[in-house]
């Protein structure tokens, strides 16, 4: 069980926690609880966001918990989801304590959250830290499988992330493209950082515009940056570029060349009052761009490039919109009509996610430049909104697809990459004011309502960038318990509260009990003309949790005799308060625990978890599920459980855990102790599992190793050995004495000089060999000995041969003579 604790990982958190921080002028992190730093910028949450997405307990048709936009760490802010199983029996005991804490967090801190998102769940990783502050926090937005997710419009967390992401390295942002991304994002989000950026970016802009070697791409980005930063660019400078750009347009053959030069000309038209940017041969240019299109609505990059791309289609739309706006005479209407058909055909290839988000993706993977769904979709959005802005008639695109595109961008959360962030924000800005249909996002600040606190249901309807929507009414079409068809509420209108800017359902109907519901909302615009302008998306399904305090009563614990069923000890428990019950039982008896749970409205409540845990003093734990048949009861028959308990007798701690997502007072109570007297374990009984060892104990001192040496042999006393040494020499002396007695003489020793020397050398040689052996015994090793012996042996052989042959010849002469 303990090994599973960490599977739930750590969850990310939202700005509803109190501790925030901001970076002051010196670059230090300053902690505070305020929402705004002294520098005037929004503070960020100090709690990091972490998540483990590899939850493998998913079962089908369960509650999907989807994280909406997050806290402020830009590194992991993409949409993620993991599944909790409703019916999963093997659920962590811990998570229910977590959910209980979640209720507390939500109820306590959810008010007036105008920026940060949704509900926070503090999830604890161990039971032991229940009362400590070691929280890991989840952000949940609930949904039913396969249905809608609640999307949130752009908020202050985006603004603070933008400040964190777009940090100029060394004063400037690098290329003009990156500068443009940064300033455009700041412009859309309303962050005013212009003075210090202008000072670094404007010189670069002027240099690019003035240089004659700048490519149309450089000019485009320089002009874009200029349009936002309003650097003081000389009119003459702008006019001087125009002929170059016009020549580039006429010579252009690839889509990108058209795009850059036409885009630059459009910007010059806005920035300069009297530059002559109008295109004479607009029809021809339109035609040549159109020639690169494919039948499925996509575009090729160039005539010699066979691959078509959706990203290129977006660029083409923008370029063609630019051509239309720059045309000196009216562009042929039939060509505009075919372009509209192209856009519609491209929209046929749109893909969608289950939660209602629509997006475009590239089919062919281009090795050089890969555009993911985000950049492809944002290119198309820019394209068609630019086109819609310049045509007089309306582009008839289905509103739900536009809303789907908006949901796609919002569903990303807060991207961690500057490019992705810019694409998201820029596309949302295009969608905010587009002339096709403006998407309206229905969002709920909280989706968990507490009956005890008498929470109000609040719904907000905004545009994607968070601005106000036109006058409308939000209707609650119906509310039903999730998983069933019974309808609890029908057709209520929500009142609009001007102060908070949200629609409020004043009082929850009295018939709403605790549980999981699905609320279906519909947005009705007051002005019927607005129906064409705004896209509301029909009915939105939102899962809502209604929580309350569950009453526990008639709780009692008893020890029964197994055979007769008679009660030996019975104690009443007060599960809301403290209990220390002391029981004792032997293996022939049973333990019975029973209690009843009722909801605030008096219904019988069935919680998700009801566990009884017995923990032995050696930390071996056993968990049992409390059954439900009207009232909750569990009977532990020790006779059958003896083997499961590993025959361990002694004192067991009893703990009861009851919890559910909608139960505000989920608890984990220590009820008391029970002394169990179990029989002795037989030989083959299973051993209790090993308890985990404290991992740091392996760094502590280890047991001392006693080395056992071989006891030295008993040596004889020294005197005895010396005596025998002397005794050994006795025969030698006897030998010498005997030799003398035998009359040994040296008569045969040669008298003449040469043989005499050889004789002496012979004897010396033998003596040397014997001395070598002595040295060998004392300190030499075999190899040196053998080497020396080799030399000595050769010498000895030579000498010996001489003297002995001499002696032999002498004696032979004597014999013959």
């Amino acid at each position, binding site marked *: 069980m303990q090994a599973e604790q960490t599977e739930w990982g750590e969850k990310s958190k939202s700005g509803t926690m109190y501790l925030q921080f901001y970076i002051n002028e010196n670059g230090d992190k300053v902690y505070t609880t305020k929402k705004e730093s002294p520098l005037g910028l929004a503070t960020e949450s100090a709690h990091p966001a972490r998540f483990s997405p590899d939850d493998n307990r998913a079962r089908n048709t369960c509650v999907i918990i989807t994280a909406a936009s997050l806290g402020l760490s830009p590194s992991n802010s993409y949409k993620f989801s993991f599944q909790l199983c409703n019916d999963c029996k093997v659920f962590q005991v811990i998570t229910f304590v977590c959910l209980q804490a979640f209720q507390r967090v939500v109820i306590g801190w959810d008010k007036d959250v105008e920026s940060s998102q949704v509900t926070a769940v503090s999830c604890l990783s161990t039971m032991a830290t229940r009362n400590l502050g070691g929280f890991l926090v989840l952000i949940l937005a609930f949904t039913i499988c396969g249905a809608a997710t609640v999307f949130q419009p752009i908020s202050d967390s985006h603004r603070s992330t933008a400040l964190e992401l777009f940090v100029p390295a060394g004063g400037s942002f690098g290329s003009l493209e990156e500068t443009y991304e940064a300033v455009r994002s700041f412009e859309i989000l309303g962050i005013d950082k212009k003075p210090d950026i202008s000072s670094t970016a404007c010189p670069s802009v002027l240099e690019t515009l003035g240089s004659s070697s700048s490519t149309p791409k450089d000019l485009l980005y320089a002009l874009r940056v200029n349009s936002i930063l309003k650097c003081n660019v000389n009119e003459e400078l702008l006019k001087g570029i125009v002929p170059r750009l016009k020549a580039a347009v006429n010579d252009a053959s690839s889509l990108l060349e058209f795009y850059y030069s036409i885009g630059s000309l459009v910007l010059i038209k806005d920035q300069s009052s009297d530059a002559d940017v109008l295109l004479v041969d607009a029809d021809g240019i339109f035609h040549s761009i159109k020639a690169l299109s494919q039948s499925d609505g996509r575009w090729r990059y160039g005539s010699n490039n066979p691959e078509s791309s959706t990203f290129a289609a977006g660029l083409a739309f923008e370029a063609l919109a630019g051509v239309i706006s720059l045309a000196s005479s009216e562009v042929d209407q039939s060509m505009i009509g075919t372009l509209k058909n192209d856009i519609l055909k491209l929209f046929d290839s749109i893909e969608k996610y289950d939660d209602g988000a629509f997006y475009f993706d590239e089919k062919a993977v281009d090795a050089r430049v890969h555009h993911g769904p985000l950049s492809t979709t944002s290119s198309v959005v820019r394209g068609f909104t630019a086109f819609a802005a310049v045509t007089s008639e309306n582009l008839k695109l289905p509103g739900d697809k536009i809303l789907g595109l908006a949901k796609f961008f919002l569903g990303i959360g807060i991207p961690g990459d500057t490019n992705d962030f810019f694409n998201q924000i820029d596309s949302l800005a295009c969608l905010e004011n587009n002339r096709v249909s403006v998407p309206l996002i229905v969002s709920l600040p909280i989706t968990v309502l507490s009956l005890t606190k008498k929470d109000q249901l609040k719904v907000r309807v905004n545009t994607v960038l968070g601005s106000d929507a036109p006058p409308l009414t939000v209707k609650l079409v119906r509310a039903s318990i999730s998983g069933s068809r019974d309808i609890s509420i029908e057709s209520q209108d929500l009142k609009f509260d001007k102060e908070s800017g949200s629609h409020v359902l004043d009082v929850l109907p009295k018939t709403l009990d605790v549980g999981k519901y699905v609320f279906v909302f519909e947005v009705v615009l007051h002005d019927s003309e607005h129906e064409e302008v705004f896209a509301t998306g029909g009915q939105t399904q939102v899962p809502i949790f209604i929580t309350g305090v569950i009453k526990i009563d008639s709780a009692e614990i008893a020890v029964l005799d197994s055979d007769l069923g008679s009660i030996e000890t019975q104690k009443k428990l007060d599960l809301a308060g403290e209990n220390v019950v002391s029981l004792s039982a032997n293996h022939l008896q049973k333990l019975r625990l029973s209690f009843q749970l009722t909801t605030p409205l008096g219904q019988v409540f069935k919680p998700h978890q009801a566990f009884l845990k017995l923990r032995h003093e050696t930390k071996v734990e056993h968990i049992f599920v409390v059954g439900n048949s009207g009232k909750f009861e569990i009977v532990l028959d020790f006779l059958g459980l003896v083997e499961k308990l590993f025959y361990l007798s002694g004192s067991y701690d009893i703990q009861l855990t009851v919890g559910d997502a909608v139960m505000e007072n989920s608890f984990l109570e220590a009820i008391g102790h029970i002394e169990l007297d179990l029989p002795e374990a037989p030989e083959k009984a299973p051993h209790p599992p090993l308890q985990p060892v404290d991992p740091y104990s392996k760094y502590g001192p280890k047991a001392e190793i006693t080395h056992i040496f071989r006891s030295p*042999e*008993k*040596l*004889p006393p020294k005197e*005895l*050995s010396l005596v*025998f040494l002397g*005794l*050994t020499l*006795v*025969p*030698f002396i*006897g*030998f010498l004495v*005997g*030799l003398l007695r*035998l*009359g*040994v003489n040296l008569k045969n020793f040669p008298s003449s000089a040469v043989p005499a020397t050889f004789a002496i050398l012979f004897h010396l040689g*033998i003596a040397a*060999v*014997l001395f070598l*052996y*002595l040295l*060998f*015994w004392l300190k030499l090793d*075999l190899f040196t*000995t053998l080497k020396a*012996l080799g030399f000595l*042996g050769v010498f000895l052989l030579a000498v*010996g*041969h001489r003297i*002995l*042959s001499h*002696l*032999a010849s002498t*004696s*032979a002469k004597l014999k013959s003579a």
Partner: protein
Amino acid sequence: MARSTSNDAQALFHSLRSAYSATPTSLKIIDLYVVFAVLTAAIQVVYVAIVGSFPFNSFLSGVLSCIGTAVLAVCLRIQVNKENKEFKDLPPERAFADFVLCNLVLHLVIMNFLG
């Protein structure tokens, strides 16, 4: 009967002594050498019997050196003895040279094994 046996023993002993005194001196030297070597070996065995054979390799090398050199001396005696018809053509110096060489090799091995 005992007296006759003791008389016989005495007579046998005397005849042995007289026969032995006829052997040449060089052979007597070799005999003496053999006796010396065997006695040394015996003393070592007695020592081991008393003390125990803890450094067994030392005991073996000591005893085997004595026995080995005794054996080589016996070989020398056989080869040098003029009454042996087989070794008539072998010059005694050659036998002696063999004796010295073999002894040196034996003692090299013994020294290595002595430890």
